[in-house]
């Protein structure tokens, strides 16, 4: 395997795929809202503690450059130019509530009211939604591989829904319109999570720190996720009250009422093995794995984000297999084999699509006097810029670019690099192949 860190993404997705199995047992007597409240409150606190622990250990034991704690905290109040210029803390809050808390609420509600196999179709719907979002917003062209994997996903969704609907009828509990609505809200909110989770940009000061000590990325990512969890959980409280006050009674209202009843048993519920499993093996460990992979990513070809989007199908596929094997959910083996085949083909086509559209280039810049001291760290903030090298020779700066499409490349060159006042001249060399 070209990149050993791919294992981190695979293991994290496999750990996430156990979630439906673990929580199915909890649903009997614990409110969904309570499960989510405890999971993200405790995980948020632990991730924050881990972030500070890494900083303290690095600054006191490691020989590497010091990680400035103040810089990590100041980052919370920086404007995020990749998320409507809102401050990072607001971005984390919105990501936490809409992308994580709401998605998990409706994910759990769909599992509770239907089955694991029916719920897994939500992941696939979200991939299709994101594909059309990218086409609408970024005008991304649908190449043959993308069309093929979208067709495969559509067939998989049809099989998942048809088989789980049959299973529900056989059990005497047909899938209702409410469950379909939960599934759609789950698909939309998880799409928001996937679209927004990487809309994060390092500041100039942070780029400088990362170049002195690459470890900085890990506490920064941990703080981001910890604040997303904690702020999302905080925003869930008014949401729960609104649901409680709405006169129309839904499954969610019942969950909210159960949550208020169970609040005095908070400590008892927290010590259940399923909750401990959710916190440690479904949250802390997988997030640490993906953050370590992200921070140390040295891919020779695809970026971390691209690999992560290719491999995230392992999560629903694993959940489906475990549901059939471990909890005997209704899903005939012949259909399971077909779905596994479609998922595998989808992963291959997604890989082919990402490889086909990836743009790699070297850009040589001639700078005005004084430009070399400020431009490298400034341009490194831009999406797609991988590294910058100050040169002695005909050119002053060499910039390595790896970006997911030619549209993004056009934007980077014409809207980001060319308008820089200190840039005199710019020469583009496309990389055909990395030969060594």
């Amino acid at each position, binding site marked *: 395997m070209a990149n050993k860190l791919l294992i981190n993404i695979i293991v994290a997705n496999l750990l996430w795929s156990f979630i439906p199995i673990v929580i199915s047992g909890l649903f009997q007597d614990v409110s969904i809202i309570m499960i989510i409240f405890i999971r993200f409150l405790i995980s948020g606190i632990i991730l924050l503690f881990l972030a500070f622990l890494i900083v303290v250990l690095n600054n006191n034991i490691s020989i590497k450059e010091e990680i400035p704690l103040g810089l990590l905290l100041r980052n919370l109040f920086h404007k995020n130019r990749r998320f409507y210029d809102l401050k990072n803390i607001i971005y984390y809050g919105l990501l936490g509530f809409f992308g994580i808390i709401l998605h998990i609420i409706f994910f759990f509600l769909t599992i509770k009211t239907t089955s694991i196999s029916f719920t897994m179709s939500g992941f696939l719907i979200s991939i299709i939604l994101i594909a059309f979002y990218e086409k609408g917003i970024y005008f991304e062209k649908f190449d043959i591989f993308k069309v093929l994997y979208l067709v495969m996903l559509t067939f998989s969704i049809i099989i998942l829904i048809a088989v789980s609907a049959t299973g529900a009828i056989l059990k005497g509990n047909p899938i209702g319109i409410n469950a379909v609505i939960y599934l759609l809200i789950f698909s939309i909110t998880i799409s928001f999570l996937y679209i927004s989770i990487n809309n994060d940009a*390092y500041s100039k000061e942070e*780029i400088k720190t*990362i*170049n002195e000590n*690459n470890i900085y990325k890990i506490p920064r990512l941990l703080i981001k996720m910890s604040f997303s969890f904690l702020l999302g959980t905080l925003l869930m409280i008014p949401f729960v009250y609104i649901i409680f006050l709405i006169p129309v009674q839904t499954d969610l209202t019942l969950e909210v009422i159960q949550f208020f009843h169970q609040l005095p048993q908070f400590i008892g519920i927290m010590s259940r093995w399923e909750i401990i499993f959710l916190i440690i093996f479904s949250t802390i460990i997988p997030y640490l794995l993906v953050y370590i992979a992200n921070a140390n990513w040295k891919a020779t070809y695809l970026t971390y984000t691209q690999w992560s989007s290719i491999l995230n199908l392992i999560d629903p596929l694993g959940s489906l297999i475990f549901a059939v094997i471990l909890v005997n959910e209704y899903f005939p083996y012949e259909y399971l084999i077909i779905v596994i085949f479609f998922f595998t083909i989808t992963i291959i086509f997604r890989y082919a699509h990402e490889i086909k559209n990836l743009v790699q280039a*070297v850009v040589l810049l001639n700078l005005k006097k004084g430009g070399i001291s400020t431009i*490298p*760290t400034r341009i*490194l903030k831009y999406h797609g*810029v*991988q*590294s*910058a*090298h*100050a*040169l*002695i*020779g*005909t*050119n002053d700066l*060499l910039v390595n670019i790896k970006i997911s499409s030619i549209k993004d490349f056009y934007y980077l060159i014409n809207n980001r690099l060319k308008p820089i006042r200190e840039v005199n001249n710019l*020469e*583009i*060399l*496309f*990389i*055909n*192949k*990395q*030969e*060594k």
Partner: protein
Amino acid sequence: MVIKAIILIKLGISVIKTVIEELKKIPEISRLMSLTGDYDILAEVIVENAEDLYEIFANKIDLIEGINASNTHLVMKSWEK
């Protein structure tokens, strides 16, 4: 002290495969890319000192058949994301 250099190479017609094979044999070349643009190849060389850089360039790279022109830059500092 380690020196890192970027050598941009222009080639003649139909020689890219043979030139790349020759360049791959040079251990001091840490990275090699084929390009589309004003240059055809980018080679990143890491050596101990300026003398070694001269040796590799004069006795290895410059002797490869098919290389029409080259442009060498020394890397002063690198930044990564």
